[in-house]
């Protein structure tokens, strides 16, 4: 089954095929279906942005990819292997890194303990700390502080530090900009761009389209639980306002 996929399968996949592929994925919360057959492809080493208004199903797509929600129909493939039925913790240990919506930190754990939790993906704590503190010196100053007592921006830095340090094959980012100052958001997306340059494939959902289009290779517009349009940012530029305003 899906547990046979090893981390090496995720990363040493030959560069041509897509790293993440959704085919006809349907998903529901209880009796309510929210994804009605989503098709989506994230090519190796690219940044794909999921765009769309509130409640379109962007976060649900990411939940299905990360293993938190099982699809009711269709297939999710990573590096060509079907991962339906794999749990979130299995996928995380296999090289999938998900930064959830809002603050992806444990508020009652210290900064250092938060980073320690990242090591369950199979990296050493000293490596994680080194990368995190080098990238965000502010975290180094506050390593003994409870994460919940830091500012929103600092908390988002902490959750991004995990993405940087666990060396994932695929990074899933959900609403990075939520509740943060524009300057902080711009900084965070700079980092996302750098991660992408290292060859990591990234799927990012974002309500504020303009903030992410600068770094995305492709964008997909999600409306009412369907991917309605896929293309390069330039191609989609004109359709965006129509999608959001529902003309």
């Amino acid at each position, binding site marked *: 089954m899906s547990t046979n996929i090893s981390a090496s399968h995720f990363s040493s996949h030959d560069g041509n095929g897509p790293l993440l592929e959704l085919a006809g994925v349907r998903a529901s919360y209880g009796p309510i279906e929210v994804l009605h057959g989503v098709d989506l492809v994230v090519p190796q080493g690219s940044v794909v942005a999921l765009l769309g208004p509130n409640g379109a199903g962007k976060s649900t797509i990411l939940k299905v990819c990360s293993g938190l929600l099982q699809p009711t129909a269709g297939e999710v493939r990573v590096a060509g292997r*079907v991962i339906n039925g794999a749990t979130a913790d299995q996928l995380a240990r296999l090289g999938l890194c998900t930064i959830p919506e809002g603050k992806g930190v444990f508020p009652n754990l210290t900064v250092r303990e938060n980073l*320690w939790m990242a090591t369950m993906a199979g990296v050493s704590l000293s490596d994680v700390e080194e990368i995190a503190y080098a990238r965000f010196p502010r975290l180094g100053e506050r390593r003994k502080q409870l994460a919940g007592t830091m500012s929103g921006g600092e908390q988002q830095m902490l959750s991004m530090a995990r993405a940087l340090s666990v060396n994932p094959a695929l990074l899933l980012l959900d609403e990075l900009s939520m509740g943060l100052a524009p300057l902080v958001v711009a900084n965070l997306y700079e980092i996302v761009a750098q991660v992408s340059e290292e060859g990591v494939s990234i799927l990012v959902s974002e309500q504020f389209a303009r903030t992410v289009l600068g770094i995305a290779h492709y964008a997909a517009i999600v409306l009412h639980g369907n991917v309605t349009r896929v293309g390069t940012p330039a191609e989609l530029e004109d359709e965006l306002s129509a999608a959001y305003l529902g003309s």
Partner: protein
Amino acid sequence: MQQFVQYTILGLVLGGVYFIAASGLVVTYTTSGIFNFSQGAIAMLAAFTYWQLRWGWGWPAPIALLVVLGVLAPALGAVLYQVVMKNLRGTSEVTKIVVSVGVMLGFLALATWVWNPTASSPRNFQKFFGANAIVEIFGVRITWHEIISFVLALGIAAGIRFLFVRTRSGVAMRAVVDDPELLELNGGRPERLATISWAGGAFLAALAGILITPITGSSMSANALTLLVIDAFAAAMFGRLKSLPRTFVGAIVLGLTNYYVVAYFPSSWTWTSAFRQSIPMIMLFIILIILPQDRLRGTTVLRTRERFHMPTMRTAWIAALVLVVVMFSLQTIMQPSPMKTLAYGMTLAMIALSLVLLTGLAGEINLAALSFGAIGTIVVFHFGTTGSGLDARMTLWGIVLASLVCAVVGAVVALPALRLRGLYLALATMAFGVFVSKMVLSEGNPRRLFGRDFTIFPGGTLRIPRPKIGPVDFNSDKAFLTLVTVLFALLAIGLVAIRHSGYGRRLAAMKDSPAACATLGMSVVRLKLSVFMLSAAVAGLGGVLMSAQLGAVSAERFDIFLSLSLLMVTVVGGIGYASGALLAGLFLGCSLLAMTNTLTKLGADYASIQAIFAFMISAVTVLPATIGITMGKNPSGAVTDIVKGLNDIKQARPLMFTIIGFEVGIWLLTATDVLTNWNFVILTAINLLVVPPLGGAIMKKRAYAKAGVAPPTPAEFIGIDRAYTQLDLDEMESVLGFDALGVAAPVLHEGEPAHAPA
């Protein structure tokens, strides 16, 4: 000086054992967010099991310890989590409390079942190495058992701290509470961590139980042993269920106070012993009030799984009328003894109604409803009766006064606890309940107060007469049953009316989000205080009538475990509805007794298989707890299902008339003395339990026949009742997920024998 050292050492040892028990609470609460009320019961079970192995069967101590602490206790904890507690995700605080209370009551019933409390020879639980293994330190004699206990407490304190701070698994356990999903995304396994921590918590409880039993020298009584560990709650709360060092300090203070009271209170104070027993609860109450709690947070509003619909006033009136009519027809055919039982059940239902008001409507929790009943009873006993001997009657004035006093006491309890919510409030009321039981209801001897002699609870038993209101005397069983039924019906209608009023809507709003209420300009304080007073008054009224029904009440009638049972059964029935309270009262007051009596009677009639009936009686005592434990699966209560069933029957008119017709027929036969009361009960049970599904099945079959469609075949009969088709095969493929694995789906060819793919 030597006395001081002696008592200090004893206090330290007791504190150490308290710490072990409290640390178990902290561990399970930290990882699963569930406050384990059954901690004390686990400790009690462990103590009994250890006694059985060590002295009952004469095993050597190390082996008995290994089996109890190394195997049984951790297994019990793990199973408890996997089977019961895991299902509590996304339920409200009340459900969480009730389920773990249910586990506690279940273990208690189990212990009394297995280890007969009236055994001929007393169970002797000795200290490790016997009571004579003594060393002298500073001129004070200490047993090895006590030294071991204290050293173990220190070791466990250090060990848990190391686990939680210095190991990744320990930190992950703390992370589970914050956000189990995020931990999964990190690659952790929250379920496994929680299971391990419950195993650990049960181990600590068991250890505390085995250590504390010989230290306090108490008899091997299930209730007493359970309460002993519940005393550790105060220590855990001092650490705010988080900090282990603070928990340790709290436990030690608790242990020391306990012994210093013995040592230094003047021996002329007759209440010292009762006071000593209530110290932990008094401390729990004070700690809860003084310690800063979590601030009001807007984000605490979770989407819980409980759903309660609001009945209309019309429904309420009809239901109340039906209840009164049914009760009236029942009492015309009933013998006096079942009528007494029924009246007792109705008074319990009235007390349960106070919980519906408080918990169902306002979301506050009271674990000591019967303690208010006790207070009402005491007031009526002293100030609310006229006449003497057989002519004694309770006055209307007495009933009103009792309710008022209960409301005031309710306010006094609630006022300091106003900031508290959920679990903290629940624990505060529990502390109050135990305090009332131990300090107030034990006041059997006269005491000089303000220059006159006064006894609160003379002789340990109060005689409470039935009421007489104006010219109407409710002394006969029939009249009394009518009184409590009509009162319950009126209170229930009042409850629905409250729910529909602006006040009721404010209560519902407060239940959902106190923070939002505050921002809307409501006075949350006034709301909480008023609903608590109202609820206490109803509980007091119910308690007074319960005492009047029983005639003579002792302190056991107001025991904290009874209050807990009542709350649990009410939540099982449906804490959001008056009918839930009715169900709870009748179940706890009548059904259990009726079942036990029936089985006893059967046992007497068929002496050869008497043992089987004795076994079933014990099983019945465990029944309510078993029902409580399954709450996690259906947190909205049984009433929801019953109402749904009733609505289905209402849709099927022929069926409804059949059932009503049968029931009237049975009643007429009983009224004309053709049928006995027993047969009436049995036939009614058949009519209500067997006829609806049977009739439903018949009507369904007819409907299919009328529409000319074949009814769907149940999965297990496919291939037997009808042929196996490609459609079935495809469905099985998709259920098993074969297409996702890329296995080619087999195709069923016409004429070939069908067989499932391997």
